[in-house]
């Protein structure tokens, strides 16, 4: 099982803040997970087509598409950060 979190405008767009899923055997990277989520959910696919980039973290560290995934990982999707 991996845990997937959504924040800020991404959370509002998908209308959910988290979900868990069994990691399919053929999904080994962030890019593969993004493709899977986009295939399952048109709203998710559109997130990557809008103006601002979609950021991702794996186990609370910002990652890119090539980052590998394993069981029990915590993945999060969010817009660019705007602290301070």
């Amino acid at each position, binding site marked *: 099982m991996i845990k997937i979190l959504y924040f800020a405008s991404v959370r509002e767009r998908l209308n959910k803040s988290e979900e868990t899923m069994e990691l399919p055997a053929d999904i080994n990277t962030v890019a593969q997970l993004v493709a899977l989520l986009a295939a399952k959910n048109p709203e998710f696919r559109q997130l990557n087509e809008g103006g601002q980039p979609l950021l991702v*973290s794996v186990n609370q560290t910002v990652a890119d598409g090539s980052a590998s995934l394993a069981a029990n990982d915590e993945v999060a999707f969010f*817009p*660019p*950060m*705007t602290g301070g």
Partner: protein
Amino acid sequence: MITVQQADFDLAAEYKGLREDAGDAGAIVTFTGLVREFYMPDADGALTGGSTQTLYLEHYPGMTEKSLQDIVAQAESRWPLLGTRIIHRIGKLHPGDQIVMVATASSHRHAAFEAAEFIMDYLKSHAPFWKKQSSATSSDWISSRSSDSEALKRWQD
């Protein structure tokens, strides 16, 4: 010391604590960020949507603390710091409210100034906070600014 909290904070108490912790510091710099009054864009992008009445701050619990610790560790590796404090507020805020505080102590003033500015520059785009502003009639997530990613270039050489 890193704190993420909904409650307001007291700059004087943080300064006092840092001064006691820091031993023989010669310089203490504090930065405080305040919520500004600004106007919301309407559908055409014109600034007529009414002034901001609330600012809502969302964050990613756990990752926030981790990323702030990482930013402080980077600052400590670049400057000889005797102490640092970061407080970032979350939840619902209003114009004039304190949002964030960074304080640094060092033997010398340039280290204290640069470390505080470095921490703020990184915090703006490397700590998982997001802001949504609302007027009486509309609300919008605030976009990241190109000036904030520009600011980071100063530290990347």
